[in-house]
């Protein structure tokens, strides 16, 4: 496994470093639970009924890199993304992220049905750390991008599901954070809007952002990413240029349709 970033990027600062990270989950969510294992802390070894979703994962990401995460379903891709977003915490090892993160994960999660689109934009952007004045500056841009100008004062619950995703993407992608995390969520929405989202991601990349991208779509991975991480059975199997990673993935599991 090669950890060092490509030579021309040596001067770029490390923004994400994952060291010996591991996280385990209960195999059966309904498993009986006792007060004792609730307080068992992080250092206990694996117990029956649990499995390591990820283990001994090591890599660092330099500022400006575009990384694609490859692997079959259930091999820990989304878990890795959530670890980097710091919305779950590792049971062993460490994940440290320097700089703000714009997580395109469950993007509609922060939106409240009862409030208007306008209130929701201020709420979500604010929760991700934007000041009111910053949001006001970008407000028109966000609404333009989402193409929902007429629905500003409509309660969020009355929007169509497409609109909901559009406004959510518009807000999160305007966060101006140096690191962007993208999960497969973008598969939602019509083709034209998806293309628009992808163009936006390309612009952000051109602007020097760091991208962390989870997808099954080989074309998208090749379009954005230069480096690939291949996860299999909870381990980081290969950390290499994206073409090599995809080639290895395809040789392991056959050509994807």
């Amino acid at each position, binding site marked *: 496994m090669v950890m060092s970033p490509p030579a021309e990027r040596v001067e770029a600062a490390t923004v994400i470093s994952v060291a010996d990270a591991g996280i385990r989950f209960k195999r059966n969510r309904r498993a009986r639970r006792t007060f004792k294992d*609730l*307080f068992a802390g992080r250092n206990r070894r694996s117990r029956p009924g649990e499995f390591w979703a990820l283990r001994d994962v090591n890599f660092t990401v330099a500022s400006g890199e575009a990384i694609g995460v490859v692997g079959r379903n259930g091999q820990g891709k989304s878990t890795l993304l959530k670890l980097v977003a710091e*919305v779950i915490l590792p*049971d062993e090892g460490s994940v440290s992220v320097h700089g703000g993160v714009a997580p395109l994960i469950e993007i509609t*999660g922060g939106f409240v049905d009862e409030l208007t689109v306008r209130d929701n934009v201020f709420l979500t952007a604010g*929760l991700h750390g934007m000041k009111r004045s*910053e949001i006001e500056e970008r407000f028109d841009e966000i609404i333009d991008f989402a193409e929902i100008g007429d629905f500003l004062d409509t309660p969020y619950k009355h929007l169509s599901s497409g609109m909901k995703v559009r406004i959510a993407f518009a807000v999160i992608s305007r966060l*101006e954070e140096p690191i962007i995390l993208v999960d497969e969520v973008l598969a939602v929405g019509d083709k034209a809007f998806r293309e628009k989202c992808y163009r936006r991601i390309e612009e*952000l990349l051109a602007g020097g952002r760091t991208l962390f991208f989870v997808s099954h779509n080989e074309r998208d991975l090749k379009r954005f990413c230069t480096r690939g991480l291949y996860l299999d059975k909870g381990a980081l199997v290969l950390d290499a240029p994206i073409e090599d990673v995809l080639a290895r993935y395809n040789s392991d599991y056959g050509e994807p349709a």
Partner: protein
Amino acid sequence: MVVSALAPSRPSWSPFARYRHSLWLLTVRDLRVRYSTSALGYVWSILDPLVMAAIYWFVFTQVFDRSVGEQPYIVFLLTALLPWMWFNGAVSDSTRAFLREAKLVRSTKIPRTIWVNRLVLSKGIEFLASIPVLAVFAIFSGAQLHWQVVFFPLAVLLQAILVMGVGLIVAPMVVFFRDLERATKLALRFLFYASPIIYGVVDLPEGLHFWAAFNPLAGVFSLYRAAFFPDQLDWATVGIGSGMCLLFLVLGVLVFRRTERAVLKEI
């Protein structure tokens, strides 16, 4: 479309400012949602204690010969009932602190204690907003305001510490043991009668005074009540109660820290 040229250098927040900012946003959101979805809004948050106060007032002054509390009884009731609504509302809402906001908790990395503290704050604000009701009753029943009203901020502080501590224990535990939601409701109903709300600590049998002080609400309510009924103020009770409030907070922080990573996996 305009995109800033390079990795942007935004003004960065101190962790404390960021915490305050997120906490405030969510608190305002809670209050907004509550008041934008009901026509009566503010009235609801005071109607509940008012109806309860009316019932107890009727029972203890009209039906029975009042032998508990002090005159005017309605003011005596409200001085503890309004803060009780804060405690009751925040603790029972904290049973759903994570479950109701699961999607948001899963997608933002704000410090997790905010999910509890926003409830402490929004219910606390509703409590402060209900004080004018007490003032109106005090004026019309001719209750005398004493200098002990200066203890009001201390009472608010102690109660905030207590509610935060209890919330930090209840919120993560409910994620693992859903039954706790109902158990909490039951415990709260018990606590209502076990706390000096419809009576004062002095109305209890002599032998119970010392033990009653270990219910932190006893000390807190006696501080609130001192504004109108200085005789209710008993510093021993307040002292033990303050210790209990701090104990709950320490316990709450410990429980919350130990369970945080498991909570995030579970929701």
